[in-house]
């Protein structure tokens, strides 16, 4: 029988061979004076530390037989994903963190629970080796979608202020005025997953399938898992972005069909006013 990755353990020495390959990047950076050598080094060290810590935490969590610590870790992962979703957004408003966390939480947990309870059905249902990586994948994609969508929504509102105000002044409701911006932002959020789905299996073998193949799973089984996870991720992004945009829309508009421009501010200005 052919060997699979799950039969072959790799040592830290083996990992260091891969690190040597990365050193080529650093050398190129130094020779071409790209100024990226220290960034590459720091990112590599940081990633290694993060993953080692994750490995140690997972080792402990996988050994537990109760739901509470598993759900606790899932909660921490969700909050971090929500906070990260806001990280790269240029225009913000008070309450954006709460909204991002709520939308990441609702969308990711909903689809992950449906996947675990109705599709994979492990025993117990919170089985950490299944629940945690699955939630991690959903969260990672969901936060990217929410981040892209929110950024586009707020920057479009800022850039199309004249148009939105003109519509309001001529009798549009707040929804009629903001609907176009909402659609553009939703489409933007869905672009990465649609692109991934379009090239899956043609340009690249997606991550989950790669992992399963390396672990020795039969290819068709790996395909089924991959297709399932793509659908789940796409659903999580769609739910997450609609919830995040809806909450944002409600935050920046008023019941009197106004757009409260004073609450939408650039990143720096908002930080200064909070201080």
């Amino acid at each position, binding site marked *: 029988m052919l060997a699979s990755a799950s039969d072959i353990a790799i040592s830290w020495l083996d990992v260091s061979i891969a690190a040597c390959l990365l050193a080529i990047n650093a050398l190129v950076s130094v020779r071409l004076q790209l100024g990226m050598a220290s960034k590459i080094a720091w990112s590599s060290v940081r990633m290694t530390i993060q993953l080692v810590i994750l490995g140690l935490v997972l080792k402990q969590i996988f050994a537990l037989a109760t739901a509470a610590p598993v759900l606790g870790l899932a909660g921490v992962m969700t909050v971090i994903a929500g906070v990260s979703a806001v990280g790269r957004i240029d225009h913000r408003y008070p309450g954006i963190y709460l909204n991002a966390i709520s939308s990441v939480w609702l969308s990711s947990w909903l689809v992950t629970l449906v996947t675990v309870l109705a599709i994979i059905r492990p025993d117990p249902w919170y089985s950490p080796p299944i629940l945690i990586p699955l939630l991690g994948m959903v969260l990672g994609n969901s936060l990217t979608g929410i981040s892209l969508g929110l950024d586009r929504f707020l920057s479009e509102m800022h850039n199309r202020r004249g148009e939105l*105000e003109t519509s309001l002044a001529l009798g549009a409701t707040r929804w009629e005025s903001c609907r176009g911006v909402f659609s553009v932002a939703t489409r933007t959020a869905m672009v990465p997953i649609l692109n991934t789905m379009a090239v899956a299996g043609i340009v690249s073998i997606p991550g989950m399938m790669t992992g399963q193949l390396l672990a020795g799973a039969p290819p068709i089984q790996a395909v089924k898992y991959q297709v399932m996870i793509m659908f789940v991720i796409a659903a999580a992004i769609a739910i997450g972005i609609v919830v995040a945009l809806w909450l944002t829309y409600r935050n920046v508009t008023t019941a009197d069909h106004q757009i409260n421009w004073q609450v939408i501010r650039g990143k720096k200005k908002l930080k200064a006013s909070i201080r």
Partner: protein
Amino acid sequence: MNFPPIIEVQDLRRRDAESERTILDGITLQIDAGECVGLMGPNGSGKSTLLRAIARLDPLEHGELFFQGNAVHGDQVPPYRRRVVYVSQQSVVVQPTLREDLQYVFQFQSSNQSLDLQDAETQLVQFGKTASMLDQPAEQLSGGERQIAALVRAMALSPLVLLLDEPTASLDAVATEGIESGIKQWLAADTEAADGLRAVVWVSHDQQQLQRVSTRVVQLNAGRIIES
């Protein structure tokens, strides 16, 4: 004949959230049918903010607005804005052409009439333009033409009140005269009709213009009315 006030604002207050500067400081004002109220004042005196407040475009810290004796809140605001139309200084034609723009604003939920394109064409001519402007690409319109397009679009809604923020700022003398006489005619035309108790609020820096067009001038300074 005495008309009831079309618009009444009481103790309007607004502050800029960023600078914490007071923009409106307890404005109380009544606008009667048949009036063209001129709003004057130095830069930053609160003229445009007051006009936007009357259009209910910005949240207020304090104050109340009555339209024909009724407070305007919530879902009454969009229909109110079709009766009391604000024309901004930086007007935008939202759709690719003015014709599509006119059709667009008649698709809003709050719209209960149908578009009279003939009227819009007549109005364009009144303002010194031709009907062909309806199909000119919006991005090719000059600043002055955009201003005229915004006025025609506002008047197409058959409003009771026009809130004009420096409507002739980007226009030459001939076009300015066309706008002034057009608005005066619009105000006079239906004033006597039972369903057309019209009024205008006109913001301008030009004192002579306000003397020509307005029936009353309100002077603002630092967010307060200093003379009416």
